[in-house]
């Protein structure tokens, strides 16, 4: 059991170091996924199977898909296909594949040999976690839901074309009065526009 822990910890550290030293964003994402998978294995063997599942689903699933979407969105155009071909060079996948196979062997070993002596005194079941989450931590759940709603609204506003257009307009027309009229008409955009305009004015004023 200890050797499994040390192996997956070593895989996590090595893959994180390799992630930081990659120059390509997609390669780094590959190693980051590997690091998250090894952390999930560490969760599993330290008596937290629910946390391991969440780590897999949310981190290695949802957040990584978001990263990959953004990486792909940033590379629109003709050179995207050539770049993608260079990203998918054969031989790039050898390092992650070796470490993922180490993790797969560990998981198979854990599933086949029911651990007699565990690393921890007892496994914390998902039911206990749920009772604790919706019992004494109820206010935290509400706060997390508000945080996620704020993140949703903020991401929508930052990513929308309308906000970008109004910002470009205020960049092109440095006349303050018209921009202020626009800002008063749409108070939701006002604060962001003000910040951006202040920054641009200062930079254009300074040589």
């Amino acid at each position, binding site marked *: 059991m200890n050797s499994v822990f040390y192996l997956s910890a070593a895989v*996590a*550290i090595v893959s*994180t*170091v390799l*992630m*930081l030293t990659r120059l390509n*964003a997609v390669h*780094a*994402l590959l190693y*980051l996924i590997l*690091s*998250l998978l090894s*952390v999930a294995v*560490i*969760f599993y063997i*330290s*008596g*937290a199977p*629910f*946390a391991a599942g*969440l*780590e897999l689903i*949310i*981190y290695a699933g*949802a*957040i990584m898909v*978001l*990263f990959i979407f*953004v*990486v792909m*969105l*940033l590379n629109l155009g003709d050179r995207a296909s050539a770049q993608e071909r260079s990203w998918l060079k054969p031989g790039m996948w050898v390092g992650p594949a070796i470490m993922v196979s180490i993790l797969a062997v560990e998981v198979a070993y854990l599933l086949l040999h029911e651990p007699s002596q565990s*690393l*921890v*005194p*007892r496994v*914390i079941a998902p039911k*206990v*976690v749920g*009772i*604790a*989450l919706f019992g004494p*931590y109820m206010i*935290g759940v509400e706060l*997390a839901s508000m*945080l*996620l709603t*704020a*993140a*949703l609204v*903020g*991401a929508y506003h*930052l*990513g929308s074309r309308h906000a*970008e257009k109004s910002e470009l307009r205020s960049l092109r027309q440095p006349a303050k009065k018209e921009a202020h009229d626009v800002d008063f008409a749409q108070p939701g955009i006002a604060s962001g526009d003000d910040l951006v305009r202040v*920054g*641009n004015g*200062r*930079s254009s004023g300074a040589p």
Partner: protein
Amino acid sequence: MILFALGTVGLLVRRDLLFILMSIEVMLNAAGLAFVAAGARWGQPDGQVMLIFILATAAAEVSIGLALVLRLYRQYKSLDVDAASEMRG
């Protein structure tokens, strides 16, 4: 601990905004690992509850951060954070 240190080093060393976001992910992940390890040490479910909160925070952070990355790229055509240092006095 080592993972957190690596994330900090990545945050300081890299100048690419995408790598900075990934380093922040690594740091949050290390914090969650510390919580789960502490919860397993005392046999309490509180560590996993904290991990769930950290997951929610990481999801919110990464959505806002990636929207900002898209915005920055459209404006400056670059992902270098030094390109966006106009606010410097």
